[in-house]
């Protein structure tokens, strides 16, 4: 375990921690503490997640009948648009970086806060402000353009709150950029002595890669959306052919961001996944360097494949061919990670706690999500599958099966650290299984339905009743998934009130965050730690022998004495 000058283990829970240091509302709303901002973010993304899930429930309810009986078409269109906008801009993009990134990036690298605490707080305020704008837009008529905002529909034809939502998305973009700047600066400049790049936990690597994508991509989509606004408000000819513009240009600009945006949502989940696998298999991740660099590779290559969303958009055959080829090549680094996680399990000492359940279901779901992407990267099959429910199923496997599962895994893993309380492991395990089953039942039928040609964004399908059985299965699954998502809200809240107090390291995990009390004190570390050991420094062989000998599990940190390192470290040199 990372040596610190205060022995971490068995340290009594500190009297004062970041949660009870101050109690006023003001102390929360004007805080500079990255942990408090993370909690603010946790509360706000959860609210938006509830809104988005409720909208999803409406969609699934409506589609059980082929003739669209409950909602008006106009309302239905607004509901699915709102579901997309809320889930993507207000949940998936900020969820992991702004909650776990904010909370844990400084701690895992041994820093007292992020590099720019006030920027961090500003990012939360921008997020909230954009969220309020979006909610106002949804309540005052809503928006019906689908989250993709394709012109000329969005710029010339839609009579809904396009302007307000675009402004909201624009502001929301700044909030992610602020967080990204903070994470990059912090990882570069504030690593504790001894915390070299290759001692960074993989979660830090993937947050770093994500932040790079955010900074390079978000301005492009922000400006593109602004151009839509200009066209809408001032008839500035950009995208609408009526005015002399080019509607396909928008799609290029939009997907230039929105393909990498997929990685903004999934890379952080990869990071959490690596943490969970390593810490619960109690073994250093297989091919650490490979996984670290593949995050960067994905971030870079993600910018050169956007055209795979446009195979039937009228882009030329040559463009399509190049984009398809590149997409196939990019798919490989993601695939590697799956192999690496699985290989890590080999010869580990696997502890099956609730977070590990999520990590294992992530492997299954993300494998399917990733592989079905190859059907869509394939120009031949994409012609038929694009814009059908096959796409819907594919990206939900990636976004829900990947990003949401990662989020839940991270939440269960770090909950004791963040709030100092233990939840019921059994309840959490059962929930993980319910979520897994509910998820598959919801989205697997959509693959079949999509292959059969069911278009997405259809309000009804009475002219094609053959799809109904799949819609019904999907809606049943959604109810189960809904139950699986309500349960954590119950037992996690319960743990806050009645839960057992968590020790500093309830999982016996490795990493600087587990060397400080739960919940951490405001300054994280009373003394900045000096890192001397490698990342995920477990010893499966010794641990195993100890197990066999019937001894208590011996944590590496207990045997280690604080040591000082005098030689200048890599981090020190920078």
């Amino acid at each position, binding site marked *: 375990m990372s040596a610190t000058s205060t022995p971490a283990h068995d340290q009594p829970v500190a009297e004062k921690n970041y949660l009870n240091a101050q109690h006023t509302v003001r102390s929360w709303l004007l805080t500079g503490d990255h942990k408090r901002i993370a909690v603010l973010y946790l509360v706000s993304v959860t609210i938006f997640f509830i809104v988005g899930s409720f909208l999803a429930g409406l969609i699934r309810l409506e589609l059980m009948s082929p003739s669209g009986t409950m909602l008006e078409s106009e309302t239905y269109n607004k509901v699915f648009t709102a579901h997309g906008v809320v889930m993507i801009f207000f949940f998936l993009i900020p969820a992991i970086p702004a909650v776990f990134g904010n909370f844990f990036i400084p701690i895992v690298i041994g820093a007292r806060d992020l590099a720019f605490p006030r920027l961090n707080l500003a990012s939360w305020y921008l997020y909230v402000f954009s969220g309020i704008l979006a909610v106002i837009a949804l309540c005052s008529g809503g928006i019906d353009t689908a989250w993709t905002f394709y012109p000329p529909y969005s710029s010339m034809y839609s009579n809904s709150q396009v302007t307000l939502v675009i402004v909201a998305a624009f502001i929301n973009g700044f909030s992610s950029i602020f967080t990204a700047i903070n994470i990059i600066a912090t990882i570069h400049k504030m690593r504790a002595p001894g915390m070299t790049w290759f001692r960074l936990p993989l979660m830090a690597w993937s947050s770093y890669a994500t932040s790079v994508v955010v900074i390079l991509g978000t301005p492009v989509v922000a400006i593109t959306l602004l151009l839509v606004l200009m066209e809408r408000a001032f008839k500035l000819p950009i995208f609408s052919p009526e005015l002399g513009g080019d*509607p396909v240009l928008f799609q290029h600009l939009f997907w230039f961001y929105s393909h990498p945006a997929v990685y903004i949502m999934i890379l952080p989940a990869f990071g959490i996944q690596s943490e969970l696998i390593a810490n619960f298999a109690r073994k250093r991740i297989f091919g650490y360097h490979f996984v670290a660099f593949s995050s960067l590779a994905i971030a870079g290559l993600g910018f050169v494949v956007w055209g795979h969303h446009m195979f039937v958009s009228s882009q030329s055959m040559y463009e399509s061919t190049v984009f398809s080829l590149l997409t196939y090549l990019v798919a490989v680094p993601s695939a590697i990670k799956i192999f690496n996680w699985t290989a890590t399990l080999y010869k580990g000492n696997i502890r099956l706690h609730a977070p590990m359940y999520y990590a294992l279901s992530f492997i299954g779901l993300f494998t399917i999500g990733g592989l079905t992407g190859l059907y869509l990267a394939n120009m031949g099959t994409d012609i038929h599958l694009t814009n059908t429910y096959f796409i819907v199923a594919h990206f939900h496997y990636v976004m829900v099966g990947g990003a949401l599962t990662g989020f839940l895994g991270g939440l269960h893993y770090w909950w004791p650290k963040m709030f100092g309380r233990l939840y019921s492991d059994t309840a959490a395990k059962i929930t993980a299984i319910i979520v897994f089953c509910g998820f598959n039942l919801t989205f697997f039928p959509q693959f079949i339905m999509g292959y059969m040609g069911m278009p997405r964004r259809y309000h009804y399908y009475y002219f094609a009743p053959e799809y109904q059985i799949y819609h019904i299965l999907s809606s049943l699954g959604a109810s189960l998934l809904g139950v699986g998502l309500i349960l954590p809200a119950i037992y996690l809240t319960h743990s806050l009130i009645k839960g057992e107090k968590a020790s500093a390291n309830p999982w016996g995990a490795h990493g600087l965050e587990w060397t400080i009390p739960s919940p951490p004190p405001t300054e994280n570390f009373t003394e900045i730690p000096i890192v001397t050991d490698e990342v995920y420094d477990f010893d499966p062989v010794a641990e195993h022998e100890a197990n066999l000998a019937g001894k208590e599990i011996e944590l590496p940190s207990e045997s280690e004495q604080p040591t000082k390192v005098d030689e200048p470290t890599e981090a020190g040199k920078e």
Partner: protein
Amino acid sequence: MWNFSVMPPQASTLAPEHDAIFLVLTALTLLFTLIVCVTAVFFVIKYREGTKADRSSPVYENPKLEMVLTVVPTILGLIMFFFGAKLYIAQRTPPKDAEEIFVIGKQWMWHVQHSNGVRENNTLHVPMGRPVKLTMISQDVIHAFYIPAFRTQMYVVPGRYTQIWFNATKTGNYHLFCNLYCGTQHSEMGGTVVVQTETEYRNWLNNGGQNAAPVSMAQAGEKLFNKIGCNNCHGATDSPRAPSLAGIYMSKRKMSDGTVQNADEAYLRESVLRPWNKITMGYGKEMPAYESTLTEEEVLSLIAYMKNPGATKGSSVSSGTSREEGLAAKTDTKNGLAVNAIEAQTTDPAATPTKRRGSLSVGAMAAQKQTEGQK
């Protein structure tokens, strides 16, 4: 609802190829998912904390294994890419002898014009066993023309032509969907593709589909050409006023900036709507821009006319030699008043196999209103 299928009907020459790739991908997906899941579960059981499994000499890096795991999927991926690209290129390269049909998408209906002038809405009659090429354009927002049974789809974009082609292999009725979200009644924007045998189709066409006495696209174009005065400038031979348009289709045109343009549909469209963008060598900006005066239907008919080798020579198109003109000649050519009345009025509901909600005329009126609203 309980006798469900897992596959859409397979009704075009390229559909089996599509399904073959789909099945191979499915096999690979299942194989890899199975390998990953079985290994993961196996490891979890075997190496659960406290089991007696051998844990000596754990592996943390194994570049050789990683190389293998990188190279093998890459090669498999490239093979799939190759077959996909082959299919895609086939899907987007219509054969030369394809029957040409024009499609106009508008909120929220499909308007189809066969080359002999027969029109239909939300229904597309096509012959079996012969390639059919659709030239499509949208009058308002972007739509997507999607026929699952043919495994084919293409966006229908305002301001530019897009094309798809297919060769149907089975008679019957198939779904036609708009597959790109286009506004309130998006779900309503579909209909039926009716595949008929060649003779049935010919009869249907010659009987004017559901509307009597059609005028062929090219004839309509000729009428319009003379009516709005294109013929005042464009004559049988190049003149100081304007170049001749005889045999212009697919010829190489020299521009005044020195470039050479291929006179395909897109070029012709641009030359009529925005002639000053590409000026023919030796001429100036004399030609007026027709951008705001012509409807998409009118432009399509002008293009159909200009594709005729004898166009602007003064010879009537009905004497042309191509199959379409031959067909058109059989129909009553005297009755040409429908030229500018290309509105959404034609299809006999009884002939629409799947009756869609809201009668067609209501849809048409809505479409009308929408366009008026825009102006």
